[in-house]
């Protein structure tokens, strides 16, 4: 046995890391640590450097939605007066608070809440509900839209740095401990290393055939969401990159006879995840990527003040830039990954990502000339998913792609 083969696979490591992370969070108080809920896109590095364990109610919700618990949990909160129009993550989470039902044994209660609105505004309101329920402080990190003018951006960064200082003060108050900036520098370095590797992994979609699909990206983004800023995340993405690189080197693609390379707009329909993959596969189509999975490829500049580079990175996520810039980000992926079509999901759960989709489609199809399918549904609640209709539309779209290919388009 060589030393290299003693390394765990990324899959094994993911399981071990996830279990360890959850155990840490569940026993946080026994070890003098704190649990904070936060949004998937938020400057969690500040927590990691201060022994505050981040928990993402969104991730927990994904686990429940994937197990098709969406409707049941939503009904529970609707009974208490909430509407079914809200984000399925929030519905599932509030349903869990009422019923205690979970796909993964639940998550610990919070000591602190942090909502960063670069991702969406829903989370602020959802966390307001939790803040009242658990009587714990809510800190809203307000990230104004990352508009293009450089002068305005400089001021936005200033505002955000001021807020991050306020956040640090709030964390010091929570824990009674002075903030350690040297530790933060170390955490930032790990976060940066993991981000570089995570992006390298995503960019492997440029190979033909692609050794990954969006479904791989969705599975493997979990570690960077909840463990960024730790050496474990760096190790994990190194192993993952090595594995995928080996596949690429051998010319192994996710789809043996890859004919169509597609872009997916929006989050996935979690409970249809596998079905969509198989349907597409039967046509030789692979969905390579989405801006959504790229939301975690940060570019921290370690030469800068950590708060400044945090502010710049978290403000400039695709969900917080202007429509033109978001289109440009998607078009960049089109070019780099040689994609030739898109499936654009208007997700009734997620106004933040969905409201721009009609206009985005206009820009992307105009610029690339490649066809796009648009469909409306919900990412987590089968009540709003029309099986037959969506399947027919996806099939019809794939047939269009086939015809175009046959015609040499």
């Amino acid at each position, binding site marked *: 046995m060589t030393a290299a083969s003693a390394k765990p696979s990324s899959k094994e490591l993911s399981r071990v890391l996830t279990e360890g992370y959850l155990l840490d969070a569940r026993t946080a108080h026994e070890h003098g640590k704190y649990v904070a809920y936060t949004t998937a896109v938020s400057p969690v590095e500040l927590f990691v450097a201060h022994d505050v364990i981040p928990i993402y109610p969104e991730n927990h919700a994904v686990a429940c939605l994937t197990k098709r618990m969406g409707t049941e949990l939503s009904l529970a909160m609707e009974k*208490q*007066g*909430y*509407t079914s*129009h*809200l984000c399925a993550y*929030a519905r599932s989470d509030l349903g869990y608070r009422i019923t205690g039902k979970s796909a993964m044994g639940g998550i610990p209660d919070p000591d602190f809440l942090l*909502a960063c*609105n670069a991702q*969406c*505004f*829903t989370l*602020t*309101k*959802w966390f*307001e*509900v939790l*803040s*009242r329920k658990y009587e714990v402080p*809510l800190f*809203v990190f*307000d990230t*104004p*839209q990352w*508009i293009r003018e450089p*002068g*305005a951006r400089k*001021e*936005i960064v*200033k*505002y955000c740095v*001021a*807020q991050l200082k*306020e956040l640090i003060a709030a964390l010091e108050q929570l824990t009674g401990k002075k903030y350690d900036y040297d530790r933060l520098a170390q955490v930032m370095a790990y976060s940066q290393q993991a981000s570089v590797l995570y992006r390298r992994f995503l960019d492997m979609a440029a190979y033909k055939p692609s050794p990954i699909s969006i479904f791989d990206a969705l599975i493997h983004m979990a570690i960077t969401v909840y463990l960024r800023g730790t050496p474990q995340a760096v190790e994990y993405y190194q192993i993952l990159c090595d594995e995928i690189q080996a596949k690429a080197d051998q010319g192994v693609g996710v789809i043996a006879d890859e004919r169509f390379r597609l872009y997916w707009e929006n989050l996935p329909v979690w409970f249809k995840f596998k079905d969509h993959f198989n349907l597409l596969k039967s046509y030789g189509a692979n969905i390579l990527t989405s801006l959504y999975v790229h939301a975690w490829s940060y570019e921290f500049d370690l030469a800068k003040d950590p708060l400044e580079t945090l502010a710049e990175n978290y403000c400039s996520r695709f969900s917080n830039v*202007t*429509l*033109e810039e978001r289109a440009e980000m998607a078009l960049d992926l089109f070019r780099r990954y040689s994609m030739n079509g898109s499936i654009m999901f*208007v997700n*009734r759960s997620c*106004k*933040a990502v*969905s*409201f*721009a989709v*009609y*206009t985005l489609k206009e820009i992307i199809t105009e610029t690339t000339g490649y066809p796009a399918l648009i469909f*409306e549904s919900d990412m987590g609640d089968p009540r709003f998913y029309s099986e037959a209709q969506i399947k027919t539309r996806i099939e019809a779209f794939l047939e269009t792609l086939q015809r175009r290919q046959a015609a040499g388009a």
Partner: protein
Amino acid sequence: MVEQRNIKPAALTRLQEIANDPYGCLADLRKRKRIIGSTLADVPEELIHAAGLHPFLILGTNNPIRHSAALLPDNSCSLARSNLELVVGYQSAFFDGFVLSQVCDTTQHLGDIWKRKFPDHYFENFLTPRQVARPSARAWYAEECRRLRGALEQYAGRAITDAALRESFALYNENRALLRRLYAIKREAPALMTNREFFDAVKAGFFMDRGEHNELVQAVVQWAEQTKDHQASANGYFRVICVGIVVEPPALYDMIDEVKGTIVADNLCTASRYIFYDVETKGDPAEALADRHLRKPYFTPINEDVRRIYADLISLCRDNNGEAIFYVHIKYCESQDYDLPDIKAAMRTEGIPFLELETEYQTTHLAQLKTRLQAFCESLFTKGAQGGVR
């Protein structure tokens, strides 16, 4: 002369005409000035005014949605949809430009779509802080005012001097003070004017030249001052606290009038949030605007103390001897959607009768709302303060 007292002054009639056909008045104004629309509720109009431009509030349309349906999904709130409908479909000829503020996911995206639709119009974002819980919010609001001031100067092709700005502050302060005075009289003498009349008088100001609006409101205040004592009896009216963002369609006010509810306090973006508190005319103008902004009543999409969603309503109600709260809920307004269950629970605990009125701009179920309102009032009067939460 007693029979004369109920005759409403011509100024009030004029204000109502404008409120009910606001875009007509803009067409006239456009012959004199460039017209800049802004969205509720946080753009400092004084800055636009001081640049020699005419600011007005874009308040949507109750006409059917045709053009904006292809641009926004149907689970966006009707305020956003009908604002877009208005500018895309009906009245774009009245506007030279826009300053749009971003308070929620809907408004953030709306701004982008809007800008793309009108590439030849002036367009500015106003990045309102979405938290007012901490000192950073004040500094940011002031900074955004400075940025907007610079942008407006460029567009208008002239400097906005501090002196011009202070004049605008004074003009708007006068306007707010007049409207607050009128509100106070209406509160004392509910028979003097209907809810619809009062809120129309406020609304007319969103569109008109501010100086002309001041003159008309001044005339109404004078009439009200002279007439109120004869109308002071509040008998037969019950005191309503009206809560929400906008009250649309305005027929809702008529319904409240019909059941003899008199609105004595509110936290609407189109009323108290608009008329409460003045801008300090001394000191740094941007900071003065920020100070006013931070003093405004609670607004659901802006984060502050999480209990303000109901704590403010309880004090509004207690301080004004309210007998019931009417919560106007714009369908698909997420922000309100998240607040409502906790608000209702708090009202139950407090024993404050509470009625939720879910509406949309293009609403087709006014009769249903009316029935709910009447049933609520009946139970309120038969059970006293135990009118319940609906």
